[in-house]
């Protein structure tokens, strides 16, 4: 009898567990990063979750065009003033009215130097905010700022409720956020999950998904397994090596967002010899076989690039990818007085798609033209301390997905003296500053094109390729992915 009971117990333990599979109206999203806080004014992480709780004045549609959000219209009144007309009747989840005061409060609390907002740089051009009437607000900028409407379409410019924030304080607000967005906050358990529920009174209509659970699953294999077993419906950051598992499964799809990721480039510390010589930089640029790297190492999950500007950015110029030409590279080195090549250190890290393998392939290709590479691979937390001062050649990913404007892609890494820039080309500096002072879009586009032409010739950095963004999803869920890396649950349907 005893033995029988033991067998029964053992058998019951072996029975399959019905792993909680989300119902049709619910969705579970698996993310690599843990959420730490959800105050959009003080984020130190991506705004993926926050984006579903809050709204911005200006929004982006699927084609990444700026469209009305909490503002119904906006216009530049003069060179330094933008006026926004606000949507009438929008309420925060706690019933507070969304009005001009809320907009002023939102921006004032971020640009206040005492607040130490880590993302103040995204709206650093804002001088002040003026309430004209409850539904009209004027934003004054320090100089001409053509990008102001774009700045109002992302964090830290998600509109927050003044009364609630003042009442509970910033700390509580970061753990129990209240916004105007399609989803209301329900629960936040650090390192485990964030749960949101649909805001039935949302101004764009009631969302079709009732409940969203954002789970943090740091390990790539565990994240993919959770998708394949149906524990989650959607995952971010699918590792390239195991992406085929998602592609081949009958229940899941791999969502490959072309131009959705960072542009990977080699930074060159131009104050170091021989990188100060333009011929040497051009030679290195020609010595890399980008197509072979993308095809063989990245399995086609990236696109070779001839410019740092993303293909979806305003100001993108479709420059040809630098042709792989080791013979010409060798000749250029000889012209530069280095017929036998030289030795140099190249640093890379573990952060991007197969970055170590790519760095190794590049080192080999440099070796083919006589440039001997001393390769160093560092952990990201150490790497960020050294880049971009050490190098002299270093691999980095840069992106403009948050603004979708060429400015973000080039200014910080081309302009002399910027924290991440190791280039110093006076002619380029002049064009970069010029581009920031023009409001007229057509004129700006022309200057941005000039910048990219000059960069292709002067090689302040060596652009390699732009990564795709990789998501995995259950077949029952509609999700196409966006170049700005957002996951708007409002646009997702589930059968």
């Amino acid at each position: 009898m005893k033995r029988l009971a033991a067998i029964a117990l053992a058998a019951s333990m072996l029975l399959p567990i019905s792993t909680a599979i989300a119902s049709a109206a619910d969705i579970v999203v698996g993310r690599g990063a843990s959420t730490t806080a959800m105050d959009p004014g003080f984020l130190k992480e991506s705004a993926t979750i926050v984006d579903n709780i809050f709204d911005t004045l200006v929004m982006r549609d699927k084609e990444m065009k700026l469209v009305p959000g909490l503002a119904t219209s906006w216009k530049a009144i003069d060179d330094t003033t933008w006026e926004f007309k606000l949507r009438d009747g929008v309420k925060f989840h706690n019933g507070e009215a969304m009005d001009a005061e809320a907009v002023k409060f939102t921006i004032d609390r971020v640009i206040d130097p005492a607040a130490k907002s880590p993302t103040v740089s995204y709206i650093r051009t804002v001088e002040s905010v003026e309430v004209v009437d409850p539904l009209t607000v004027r934003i004054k900028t320090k100089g001409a700022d053509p990008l102001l409407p774009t700045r109002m379409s992302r964090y830290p410019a998600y509109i927050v409720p003044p009364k609630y924030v003042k009442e509970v304080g910033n700390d509580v607000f970061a753990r129990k956020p209240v916004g105007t967005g399609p989803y209301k906050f329900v629960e936040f358990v650090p390192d485990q999950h964030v749960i949101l529920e649909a805001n039935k009174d949302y101004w764009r209509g009631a969302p079709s998904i009732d409940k969203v659970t954002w789970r943090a699953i740091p390990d790539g294999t565990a994240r993919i397994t959770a998708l394949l077993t149906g524990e989650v419906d959607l995952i971010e950051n699918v590792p390239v090596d195991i992406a085929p598992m998602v592609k081949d499964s009958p229940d899941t799809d791999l969502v490959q967002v072309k131009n959705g990721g960072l542009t990977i480039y080699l930074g060159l510390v131009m104050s170091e010899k021989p990188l100060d010589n333009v011929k040497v930089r051009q030679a290195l640029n020609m010595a890399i076989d980008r197509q072979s790297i993308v095809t063989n190492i990245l399995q086609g999950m990236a696109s070779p690039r001839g410019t740092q500007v993303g293909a979806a950015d305003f100001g993108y110029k479709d420059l040809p990818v630098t042709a792989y030409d080791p013979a010409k590279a060798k000749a250029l080195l000889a012209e530069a007085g280095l017929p036998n090549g030289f030795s140099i250190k190249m640093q890379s890290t573990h952060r991007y798609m197969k970055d170590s393998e790519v760095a190794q392939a590049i080192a080999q290709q440099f070796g083919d033209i006589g440039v001997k590479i001393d390769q160093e691979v560092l952990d990201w937390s150490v790497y960020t301390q050294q880049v971009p001062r050490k190098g002299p050649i270093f691999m980095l990913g840069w992106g403009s997905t948050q603004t979708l404007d060429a400015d973000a892609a080039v200014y910080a890494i081309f302009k002399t003296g910027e924290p991440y820039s190791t280039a110093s080309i006076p002619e380029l500096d002049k064009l970069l500053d010029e581009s920031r002072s023009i409001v007229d879009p057509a004129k700006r586009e022309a200057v941005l094109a000039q910048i990219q032409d000059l960069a292709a010739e002067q090689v302040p950095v060596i652009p390699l390729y732009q990564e795709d963004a990789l998501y995995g999803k259950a077949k029952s869920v509609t999700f196409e992915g966006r170049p700005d890396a957002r996951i708007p649950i409002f646009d997702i349907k589930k059968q």
Partner: protein
Amino acid sequence: MKTLSFITGRALQGLVVMFGVSAIVFFALFLTGDPAALMMPPEATREEIEAFRQAMGFNDPIWVQYGRFLASAVTGELGMSLRFQRPALDLLIERLPATALLAMTALVWSSLLGFLLGTIAAVRKNSAIDFAIRVISLLGQAIPVFWLALLLIIFFSLKMRWLPSSGIGSVWHLIMPSIALGAYYLSAITRLVRASLIEVLGENYIRTARAKGISSWRIIVHHALRNALIPVITVQGMYFASLLGGALVTEIIFAWPGIGRLAVEAIQNRDFPVVQAVVLFAAAVFVIVNFLVDLAYVWLNPRIRL
């Protein structure tokens, strides 16, 4: 009186250790740079990074920063997490139950099974079963945790669909992480029990007991095992202490919300105060557990005097 001086002596030793650890962890973190660059978005200008650095006190001389850190650490204040904007100690305490649960489960099953296998192997020395147990325990120590963890996920979650692949919540969630974490300890304890028991079984007093006609079962349990326990307890104390400091790899792979994961993410984000809190906590647990292990010796073997 002797006991009291033993305890105060150990407490003082512990304090010295803690002081040393605090200095090492503080200066080691600083050697690799300051966190301002990592905390600010890439578009930040040089002035903005500098202003942030100034505001956070990263510009003061390092010994001033260390003094500030030490002064507040003495009062139990381990600083604010840069990433969470919350006290580092709170974050740690929040995650302690998850880590303790995982550590206990892993240690309990691996100890029980380890004792059983180790005893069988020792009693049946050089038999086929001894050989099998030795091979298994060798494997357990040789297999890296991350590999075992992934194999478990692929088999139990992906192929069989028996267990949830990651996270915390039910008993089922606990199975794979505790197997992955306990496998190493199972092997270590099996080998240790086996070796220690074989040695004890060769002692004169065991031969005497046998000569007196005491049953071999009684000899093993009452006479041999108790004496064989001493090295095992020492090692288990160490294991438990290191497990409470967080299981870095296991917690990351299984998305287990414990101290190990907190530590890894803090290091990746250069969240100094949290790294310091975790290391200091782990050191404190080590000191305390070692002290308890010393006391356990006395209980197990009255020949050891304080």
